[in-house]
C-alpha cells in the first residue's frame, strides 16, 4: 500500500486515470444497483480522492463541478432512490454552508458559539413569514404570501438579516470571553428559538409552536422548484459562492486579523486591530451563510417551526467543525458531509438492518439495546474514536506556503537606502 502511494505521488497522469476509473466504476455501480446506499457513498467519496490528488486547483474545481453538477445527479436519476439521494445531498450542502459559517467564528476567530443555529432560524423565518400568509397579520401594506419569485431576493435578504442579527447579538455577547462566551451564546440561541415559539401574540408574527405551513416554493419564469433534485442545484450554487467567499476571506487582511485575535487578543490589539469590530465581522459573516441556507431550508421544507432549531442542531454543527478540523475549509466540508450522511443514511441503514435481523430472529436485542436506541450510541462512539485518533480533525488546517524567491525579489523595493540586510545572519550587523 505504501509502495503504491509513493509510486502515485508526483505522477499526475496516473492520478487522473485512477480517479476517472474510480468515478466510472462507482457511477456504473450506482447506475446499475440503484437503491444501493454504498454505491452512492462511494460515488461521493470520489470528491475526497480528488482533493488528495496533486492536480492544479483549477482542474480540481472543474472536475468537482462536473461530478457534482453532471455525474452524480445523472447516474442516480433513473432509480427509485433518486429523490432520497438528492435530498441527502441537498441537506449535506446546507450543513456544509452552515459549518463553514461557524468555522469562521470558531475556527478562525476562536469564538466558541453554541447558539449558531439561531441565524439559520432567522433566515428560515425571514422567508417563511413573507412567503406565507403570515405577514398579512402585521404588515399594513402589500399582499401576502409573496410569490415564489421573491425567493431569489430573499436569499440575499436572509443573508443580510442574519448578518445584522449577528452584529446585534454580538455587541452584548462579545463583552465576555472564553467559556462564558459559550454559555452566553447558548442562551441567546435558546432565546431566539423561544421568541419564535411565542411570537404569536400579541401580534401573530411567527405563528408560534404551530409553525408556518405551505411556504411558497421558489419559482423562476414560471418554473417551480419543489423536488430535492431541483433544490440540489440551488444549494450547489450557493455553496460554491460560500466556499469562494470563505477562501478569499481566510487569506486576506480580514482573515489574518481573525486569526490574530484567536491567537492572542492583546498582541492583536497592539498591532492596531480593532478587537470588537473584528469579532463582530466574524459573527456577521458566519451568520450570513446560515441565513442564506435558512431561506433555502424554509423553501425546501415548505414548513418552518421552532423545533428545527434546537440546541442539538447548534451542537451538531459545532461537531462538524471540530471533527472536520477547526479552521480548515476542506476539513469542515468533509466533517459536515460525514456527520450528515452518518445521521441520515448510514446509521439509519444500520438500524434498519439490525431491526430486520431481530425480526428474523437471527439475533435478539434486550429492550435497553434496541437498535433504534443504539443509533445515538454508535454516533457517540464514532465521535470519540475520531477525537482520539484525529485530534486535529479529519483534515487539519494548513497554513499557506509562501514562495520565498518571489518575495526576495519584491522585498528590495521596501528597503530604505541606508538599510542593509544580510539575510539569516541574525542580529549581526
Amino acid at each position: 500500500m505504501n509502495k503504491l502511494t509513493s509510486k502515485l505521488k508526483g505522477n499526475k497522469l496516473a492520478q487522473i486515470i485512477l480517479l476517472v476509473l474510480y468515478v466510472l466504476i462507482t457511477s456504473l455501480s450506482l447506475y446499475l444497483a440503484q437503491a444501493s446506499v454504498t454505491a452512492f457513498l462511494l460515488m461521493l467519496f470520489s470528491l475526497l480522492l480528488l482533493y488528495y490528488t496533486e492536480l492544479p486547483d483549477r482542474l480540481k474545481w472543474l472536475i468537482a463541478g462536473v461530478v457534482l453538477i453532471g455525474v452524480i445527479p445523472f447516474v442516480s436519476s433513473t432509480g427509485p432512490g433518486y429523490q432520497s439521494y438528492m435530498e441527502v445531498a441537498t441537506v449535506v450542502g446546507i450543513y456544509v454552508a452552515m459549518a463553514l459559517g461557524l468555522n469562521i467564528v470558531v475556527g478562525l476567530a476562536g469564538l466558541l458559539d453554541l447558539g449558531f443555529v439561531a441565524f439559520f432560524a432567522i433566515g428560515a423565518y425571514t422567508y417563511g413569514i413573507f412567503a406565507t400568509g403570515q405577514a398579512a397579520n402585521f404588515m399594513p401594506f402589500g399582499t401576502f404570501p409573496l410569490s415564489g419569485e421573491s425567493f431569489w431576493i430573499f436569499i440575499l435578504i436572509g443573508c443580510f438579516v442574519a448578518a445584522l442579527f449577528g452584529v446585534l447579538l454580538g455587541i452584548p455577547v462579545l463583552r465576555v470571553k472564553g467559556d462564558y462566551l459559550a454559555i452566553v451564546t447558548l442562551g441567546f440561541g435558546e432565546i431566539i428559538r423561544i421568541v419564535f415559539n411565542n411570537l404569536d401574540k400579541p401580534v401573530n408574527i411567527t405563528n408560534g409552536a404551530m409553525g408556518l405551513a405551505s411556504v411558497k416554493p421558489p419559482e423562476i419564469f414560471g418554473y417551480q422548484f419543489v423536488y430535492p433534485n431541483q433544490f440540489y442545484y440551488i444549494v450547489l450554487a450557493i455553496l460554491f459562492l460560500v466556499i469562494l467567499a470563505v477562501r478569499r476571506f481566510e487569506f486576506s487582511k480580514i482573515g489574518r486579523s481573525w486569526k490574530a485575535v484567536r491567537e492572542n487578543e492583546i498582541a492583536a490589539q497592539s498591532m492596531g486591530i480593532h478587537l470588537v469590530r473584528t469579532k463582530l465581522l466574524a459573527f456577521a459573516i458566519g451568520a450570513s451563510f446560515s441565513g442564506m441556507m435558512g431561506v433555502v431550508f424554509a423553501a425546501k421544507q415548505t414548513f418552518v417551526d421552532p423545533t428545527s432549531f434546537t440546541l442539538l442542531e447548534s451542537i451538531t454543527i459545532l461537531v462538524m467543525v471540530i471533527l472536520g478540523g477547526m479552521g480548515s475549509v476542506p476539513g469542515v466540508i468533509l466533517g459536515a458531509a460525514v456527520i450528515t450522511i452518518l445521521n441520515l443514511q448510514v446509521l439509519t441503514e444500520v438500524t434498519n438492518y439490525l431491526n430486520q435481523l431481530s425480526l428474523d430472529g437471527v439475533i435478539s436485542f434486550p429492550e435497553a439495546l434496541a437498535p433504534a436506541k443504539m443509533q445515538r450510541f454508535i454516533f457517540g462512539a464514532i465521535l470519540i474514536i475520531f477525537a482520539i485518533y484525529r485530534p486535529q480533525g479529519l483534515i487539519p488546517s494548513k497554513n499557506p506556503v509562501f514562495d520565498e524567491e518571489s518575495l526576495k525579489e519584491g522585498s528590495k523595493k521596501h528597503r530604505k537606502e541606508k538599510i542593509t540586510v544580510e539575510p539569516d545572519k541574525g542580529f549581526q550587523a
Partner: protein
Amino acid sequence: MSILTVSNLTKQFGGLVAVNSVDMTVEKGSITAVIGPNGAGKTTFFNLITGVYQPDNGNVQLGSSSLVGLKPHEISRHGIARTFQNIRLFSNITVLENVMVGLHKQLKAGIVGTLFQTKKVREEEQLAKEEAYHWLEYVGLAKHLNEDAQNLSYGAQRRLEIARALATKPKLLLLDEPAAGMNPRETRELTEFIHRMREDLDVTIVLIEHDMKLVMEISEQIFVLDHGEKIAEGKPAEIRNNVKVIEAYLGKSAVTPA
C-alpha cells in the same frame, strides 16, 4: 525635543500601588532604559502607555496628543509598538503572517474588495507579503518565513516580535526585557541591533531590561523604578553610583556597612 511625556502616572491594583506618580520625559531619537527590581512596576508602566491598562491618575502624551483613555489599537495607530515580556506571538500562523498582521493598519482592503479580489486588493496583498518579508530579512528570520511561529527558537521568537512591531512603523518602540533568556552572544548581537534600528528607522526606543551590562552600554537615559515609584533618573554613569539605586537592588546593608 521630547516625544513621550508621562506625568504623575498612577495605577493601583486593589491595595497595591503598582505605579505611583511617575514622571518621565523621553527624548526623540534616544534609547532609554527603565530598570528596577522584580515587581517594581515596569511592565505595568508599559501597559499604561500602550492602553492595556487605564491609569487611575496622570497623563501620557505622545508628541502633542494625550493617549489617556485610548484603546490599545488606537495607541498603535498613534505610532507606539511594543514587544512583550512573556512572548505573545500568533503561535499557530506562519512567521511571515505574524509580520503581515503588523501591517494591518496600513492595508485598505475591505469586505467588498476582499470578496471580489479587486486588482487593488491583490496588489496590496502582494506588496504586504513583500514588505513583511523585508522585515524578516531585517531581523534575520527570512529563511523561516513558512514556519509556524511557535516552532521558532526562543531567541528567534523575540526577534519575530521585534519584526512584527517594526512592521507597524512605530515612532516609539517599547521593548519589555528583550534580552531575557538570551545567551551572551545573542545579547551582544541584540545590543548592536538596537543601535542599528535607531539609526536605520528613526525610531525612539524605550526598553525594560535586567541585564545591566546591556543597559549601561546602550542607554542614554535611565529611569529606575522601585515599588512603583521612580527613585532615580540620569545617565548610566550617574545611575551606577546612585545610592538609592544600589539600595533598591542590593538592600540597605550594601550602602551602610553594619
